[in-house]
């Protein structure tokens, strides 16, 4: 079921970046223009478009241009219920490992390894 799902791999790849996760988080509250998506991040427009491309290729989001405004929305049906469940477990563990890694670095900086 999941083993041959290259779409799932692409989705995980897309989720591996904090800017893209932030963009998805914004989109989970509703459609947004490219400039609205870019707003929280201090990165260039080309970089934002690059991230958007990765999200679209992974099937997690899609965008549509009307006039001069490109509107981006979440594509919630990329994954089956089973896949999104397991993907959510993965993102939660990835997040926990992020926190763990971060905490280990704090411990190391504080020199508590000698206690």
């Amino acid at each position, binding site marked *: *079921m*999941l*083993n041959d799902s290259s779409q799932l791999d692409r989705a995980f790849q897309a*989720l591996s970046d*904090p800017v893209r*996760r*932030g963009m*998805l*988080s914004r*989109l*989970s509250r509703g459609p947004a223009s490219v400039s609205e998506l870019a707003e929280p991040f201090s990165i260039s427009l080309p970089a934002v478009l690059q991230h958007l491309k990765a999200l679209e290729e992974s099937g*997690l989001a899609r965008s549509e241009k009307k006039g001069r405004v490109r509107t981006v929305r*979440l594509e*919630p049906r*990329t*994954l089956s*219920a*089973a896949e*999104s*469940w*397991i*993907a*959510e*477990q*993965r*993102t*939660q*563990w*990835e*997040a*926990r*490992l*992020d*926190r*763990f*890694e*971060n*905490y*280990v*670095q*704090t*411990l*190391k900086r504080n020199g*508590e*390894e000698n206690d």
Partner: protein
Amino acid sequence: MTDGNELRLERTLDAPCELVWKAWSRPEHIKRWWAPRPYETPECEIELRPGGKFHTRMTGPDGFDFSGTACVLEVEPGERIVWSTTMKGGYWPNEFPADGCNGFPFTAIHTFEDAGAGKTRYTATVLHANAKDRDAHAAMGFDDGWATCAEQMAEVAQSLAADA
């Protein structure tokens, strides 16, 4: 392929095994990273022996309050810890009522390996059961899928950025 779902995550941490083990095996340290902010882990107990209990309680400003007790199955200090939510301390089985309020069964295998130059290779393998558990998970109110996980990931990204 088995009946269940296996997740395998791997990180190379820039810290020696001994320190990494400490962060994973002592309650005062586990409390600091277990829950995603703004959630907290006010309670943590871990008995480092087969049959020992691994208890955590997470609380949040939105009234979230979740306690879980797992059973420690294997401990090799500095190298490996295995625990499972299928049981609690003393190998007593956990109940998983259909409302999902007691979480769902899974087994987590954590291994730590010296990667040289003061680094540690950390692997987390999480074994999940079948579709029934997904339903339990959905019953907990998490089934709006990507929205929930994207929110959570964003939360972590922000906390990492704030710490940087």
